């Protein structure tokens, strides 16, 4: 075990990637994976804001059982737009395209992704797809729900086709990014960096890319067929002409269940990194996390039927899907056990990223276990299409991916911007986000138990108290997110300068300057010391924030 030689903490001689060229064109047409990551960051954060506004409007509408601020038509369109914007424009591209793009090449010691031009093309395809979705919104949006179940999605008079074309295009951007990342990890690793020495975030992005490449085309096909049915009434799923709406649900969920793993796997990668860094300890079992990542990536494809227990599927298939769903849940459980065990015998520093990761652990445990509960067939009969399911997937998506996205934002903020944010504001932001989240979605679990169906514009009076509580919670959550935008924006210009390794981490991205130069490493990256080897002391020059 060689003691690490002097790492390059000193500000690099050459300018950082952000300073190298400053013209607008150099940003918009850059093939530098770091700049494309930053472009994705702004695009996906805008989508998050847009989706968040829709969510707040929905919650305000539910303050009273009857009409409150909008008509039924507007409400139905808003909950669909909230779903479409959040799923395809934020959740799926957020961590892989933003932090994956920025960090994957650095974490494997490469200077660039395998196909830089394809990477830039993927970003602009994403923007084109998002433009189509915005055009559809302008044309009056659609009211089919983000699942587009036929036959309603085929007969709905709303702007279904432009939205589906938009998502089809965004899908292609996801596939191309997936191909890019898979080839990068396979062929561009630095010399001597074997598969079993890769950082866990890289493994998470690699697993996500596998799902993106294999699942997204099926979504493309099902949306293409619904568009043809809607535009030309070809009725491929029309029961009068031999079709079967349940087959559409099979095709849709074949994509959409792996899609929820596209959303959660990168979040798990972030959590593995943050826990190891802030407890300054090797992961309790590196292999367990890697194999459960790959396990989720593949077994995630076998379980889509648990969305259709009451949809008219045969009992045999329902039983098979129920059992397979239990199998995939065990991989997430293994990860949670491994994360918690990593903390023991560590040297734990409590900083905002770690607070967000603790928030993630609590919410993901609730979310994951209610997932297992909903996959238990007889319970799903009562809970399906009620607010219980809404609460479950918000616990794993907002409690899981959004919290991990915030953790990643704070953890790699110094690396991307070269600045440090203030921990006090960070903690306050976390407190607001966490309590706001709890206030919003725990009442929705109870609403689901009480039998409140989802996608209801009006609801019986007996549910009003819980709805009001949920709406108040959503305001606190919104306040927390706005506060985060505030102090991170402030830190961008006025934050203290950050060194190459403010968190005293051993991971590879912390062995170059912050922000890194255009070619990621000023000198040949020395990756001799393992990414999670905290046994050797790092030279004194490493300061702590």
């Amino acid at each position, binding site marked *: 075990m060689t003691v690490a030689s002097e790492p390059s903490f000193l500000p690099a001689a050459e300018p950082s990637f952000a300073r190298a060229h400053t013209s607008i064109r150099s940003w918009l047409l850059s093939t530098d994976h770091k700049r494309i990551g930053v472009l994705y960051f702004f695009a996906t954060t805008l989508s998050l804001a847009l989706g968040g506004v829709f969510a707040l409007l929905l919650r305000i509408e539910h303050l009273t059982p009857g009409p409150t601020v909008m008509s039924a038509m507007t409400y139905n369109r808003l909950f669909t737009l909230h779903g479409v914007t959040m799923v395809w424009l934020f959740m799926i591209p957020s961590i892989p395209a933003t932090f994956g793009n920025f960090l994957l090449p650095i974490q494997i010691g490469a200077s660039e992704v395998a196909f830089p031009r394809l990477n830039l093309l993927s970003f602009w395809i994403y923007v084109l797809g998002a433009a189509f979705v915005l055009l559809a919104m302008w044309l009056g949006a659609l009211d089919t729900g983000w699942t587009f179940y036929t036959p309603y999605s085929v007969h709905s008079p709303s702007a279904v086709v432009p939205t589906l074309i938009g998502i089809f295009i965004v899908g292609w951007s996801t*596939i191309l990014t997936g191909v890019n990342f898979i080839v990068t990890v396979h062929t561009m690793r630095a010399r001597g960096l074997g598969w079993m020495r890769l950082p866990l975030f890289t493994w998470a992005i690699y697993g996500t890319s596998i799902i993106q490449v294999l699942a997204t*085309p099926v979504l493309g096909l099902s949306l*293409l067929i619904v568009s043809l049915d809607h535009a030309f009434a070809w009725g491929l799923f029309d029961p009068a002409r031999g079709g079967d709406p349940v087959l559409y649900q099979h095709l849709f969920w074949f994509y959409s269940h792996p899609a929820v793993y596209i959303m959660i796997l990168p979040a798990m990668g972030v959590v593995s990194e943050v826990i190891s860094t802030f407890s300054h300890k090797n992961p309790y079992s590196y292999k367990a996390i890697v194999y459960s990542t790959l396990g989720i990536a593949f077994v995630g494809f076998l379980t889509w039927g648990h969305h259709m227990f009451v949809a008219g599927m045969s009992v045999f298939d329902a039983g098979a899907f129920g059992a397979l769903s239990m199998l995939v849940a065990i991989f997430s459980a293994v990860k949670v056990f491994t994360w918690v065990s990593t903390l023991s015998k560590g040297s734990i520093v409590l900083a905002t990223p770690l607070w967000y990761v603790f928030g993630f652990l609590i919410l993901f445990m609730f979310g994951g276990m209610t997932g297992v509960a909903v996959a238990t067939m007889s319970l799903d009969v009562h809970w399906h299409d009620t607010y219980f399911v809404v609460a479950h997937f918000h616990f794993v998506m907002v409690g899981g991916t959004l919290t991990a996205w915030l953790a990643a934002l704070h953890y790699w903020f110094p690396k991307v911007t070269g600045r440090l944010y203030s921990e006090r504001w960070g903690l306050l932001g976390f407190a607001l986000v966490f309590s706001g989240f709890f206030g919003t979605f725990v009442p929705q679990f109870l609403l689901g138990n009480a039998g409140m169906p989802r996608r209801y514009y009006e609801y019986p009076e007996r549910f009003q108290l819980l709805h009001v509580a949920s709406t108040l919670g959503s305001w606190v959550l919104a306040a927390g997110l706005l506060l985060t935008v505030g102090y991170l924006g402030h830190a961008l210009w006025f934050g203290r300068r950050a060194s190459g390794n403010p968190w005293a981490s051993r991971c590879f991205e912390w062995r170059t300057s912050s922000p890194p130069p255009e070619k990621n490493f000023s000198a040949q990256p020395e990756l001799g010391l393992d990414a999670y080897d905290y046994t050797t002391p790092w030279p004194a020059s490493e300061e702590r924030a």
Partner: protein
Amino acid sequence: MNSVRHAAQFQSLAQQDHATRLGMWVFLGSELLLFAGLFALYAAGRVAHPAAFHEGVAHAEKSIGSLNTAVLLTSSTTVALAVESLRRERRAAAVTLLSITIALGAAFFCLKLAEYGAHFRAGIYPGGAGSFFVSHGTPGLPLFWTLYFVTTGLHAVHVCVGLGVLGLSAQAIARGKMGGERAYVLENAALYWHLVDLIWIFLWPLYYLA
């Protein structure tokens, strides 16, 4: 012919070759899954309406379909030969073989349009519209024909994309931009063409023979 420099981010030409080949195969995997949904719909449809699918196959244009199969299989052979000749630096042979492949691909596309024309004349339109379905009332028959039109239509689109890619490769070889070292660009184009052929190999029995 100047020695071809590899792109900046790669350390060697072999690594670039390996990367593009792997990228192509992963992309072919996703293309295969684009058609997987249609094969799954065919399987589910056939299980639900066996009679309609038998009747549908009985009314298929078997002769044009089989001719198309022969055309596509031959074009697969010629594009493989083109790759081999480029590897042996026999550019003229490569360009001619590619032109034959493109001609065969175009022939396939024209035959496909002719076949659609025959169906339209017979009153078979997607969505179960058309006079054919008035006289043939088997439930599930419109599903067979709509699936036929969507699947072969999507396949025809991929044939066009393949023709475009092969055309660009032929132009690049003709202008000397692509030599023995960088043969993998043509190999990837050929891989795409072989995938298009592979999908047709399975479409043919499903919609024409059995």
